[in-house]
């Protein structure tokens, strides 16, 4: 007789197999392809590549636009994270600490960049740049667009963090004669810290991953890691090269995302306010 326990077990084995198939096999294939040596192509009659080497990695590093793409992506991302964070702070403070009329409307308005399709935003932002004659400043334009596009995440995370700052902690610090800085340090900072890190990290990841703005506004000539990977999947599709680029885009972000998840979990009000 099939008991719920057996059924659960069978379901779990089935699902684990499916989940493994849809993650492990694709990634293993990508890793193997990135190590295929050009001297001996990987043909269907071989289970594994006949000769494996780091040639493709070295080749892409030396002969593709990988270096400028990495430089652009990893300069844009920290800047976008910092600027977005600074711009989001006053709004997040207002939404998290104050009660005012129209607060719900303000919260909905903050989500606007997520509702308008990014491709539409990208194309008509470029149109505006042409109208005002600033289309040549591609780096700054992308930085600006990333900042606005990722403001909803920063505002949301930081306003929740501000809500978690406990008024009794602030009052206690003030009653004890703490200076404004000391109040911030003992009452605000412990509650805000996980949110600050999460905001910086999420905008960083989003900026590194962003494609539409970088692709449209960056034309011609401005390349980021996602636009380079996209180009490698086009007409000149070369599997080993595309595998190298895909892994360069995917691996650091997966690690950062895992770190972010941990950070968001630790953003617990009880813990961050110092009280159990």
């Amino acid at each position, binding site marked *: 007789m099939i008991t719920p326990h057996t059924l659960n077990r069978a379901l779990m084995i089935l699902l684990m197999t499916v989940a493994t198939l849809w993650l492990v096999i694709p990634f293993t294939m990508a890793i193997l392809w990135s190590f295929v040596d050009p001297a001996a192509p990987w043909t269907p009659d071989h289970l594994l590549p006949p000769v494996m080497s780091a040639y493709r990695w070295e080749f892409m590093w030396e002969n593709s636009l990988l270096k400028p793409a990495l430089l652009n992506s990893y300069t844009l991302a920290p800047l976008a994270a910092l600027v977005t964070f600074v711009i989001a702070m006053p709004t997040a403070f*207002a939404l998290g600490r104050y009660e005012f009329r129209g607060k719900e409307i303000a919260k909905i308005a903050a989500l606007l960049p997520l509702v308008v399709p990014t491709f539409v935003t990208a194309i008509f*932002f470029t149109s*505006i740049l042409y109208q005002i004659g600033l289309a040549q400043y591609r780096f700054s334009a992308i930085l600006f667009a990333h900042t606005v596009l990722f403001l909803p995440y920063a505002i949301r995370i930081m306003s929740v963090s501000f809500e978690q700052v406990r008024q009794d902690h602030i009052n206690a610090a003030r009653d004890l004669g703490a200076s404004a800085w000391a109040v911030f340090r003992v009452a605000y900072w412990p509650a805000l810290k996980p949110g600050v890190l999460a905001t910086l990290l999420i905008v960083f990841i989003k900026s590194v991953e962003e494609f539409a703005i970088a692709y449209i506004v960056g034309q011609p000539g401005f390349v980021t890691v996602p636009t380079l*990977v*996209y180009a490698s999947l086009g007409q000149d599709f070369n599997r080993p090269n595309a*595998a190298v680029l895909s892994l360069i885009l995917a691996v650091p972000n997966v690690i950062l995302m895992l770190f972010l998840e941990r950070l968001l979990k630790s953003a617990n009000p009880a813990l961050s306010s110092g009280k159990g």
Partner: protein
Amino acid sequence: MIRPSPWLITLLLLPGIGLIVVFIGAVIYIAIAQSIGFYNLSGESGFTLESWDKLLARKSYWTAVRYSLFIGFWAAVLSVAAAYPIALWLRKPFKGSLTVSALLKAPLMIHGIVAAFLFLNIISFNGIVNQFMIWTGLFDAPRRLQNDSGAWGLLFLQVWKNMPFALLLLTGAVQSISQDTLNAAQDLGAGAIERFRRVIAPLTVSAMQAALIIIFIDALADFTFQTTVGPTNRQSLAQYMDFFRSRGRWNEAAGVGVTLMALSLAGAIVLAVTARLIFRKRPIGRVLAWYEIRNKEARS
């Protein structure tokens, strides 16, 4: 909470919300204005519906509209339909449930373009799928699976990428349903389907709506999946818009952009309202009334 002066609030909201409203407002405004002949980058500017006339007369425009709606609708519905049973199964933690959940949600962390590459790699002419099919004897020789005209590959990829997102939203919603409510429904004789239709779905309809809307908008405006694994005989609206833009035909690009925004809004409303209408039959009143009586009896 403190109630400060409206001036202070305005000042605080300006850099964040103000910037968002001005930027997105300007994007929407310029798209609408360019679609009716204003802000031309070359030539005369002025009100005209010429680009709309041209656009609406094109068969390719309507094909793109139908195709994008098809992808948006099915991506949203299939992702949510696939996520529900898993969310219900993972509702109560059991040994290994966290691992399953993490594995299933992993595609959330993988970039869409990387996902497209992984998929292309698997289904390519000499890829593992073709080899497996030959090994099983189902295929005599490798077949071209890439860019299939039925968009099955594209839909698979959309569901692969979006199902974990739906799962994320639905897991929270499903976990908040109390076991008592489900027990009560079961005691009243509701079977598994009936319990889903009349208890679980109505109670989680908000999360369902959110998942449907977000996935719909994302898939409707898809560009990267379409241009990498999508059919080559049809264009999505985003692809169509970029086609006009890359040729400097901004008015027509704007027309497609406005269409995309209007369809996003209309589709989101239709999906939200339909989900609400289908699952509006709230049995909860009956279930809860019965539960209350049982509780009272137990107390007395």
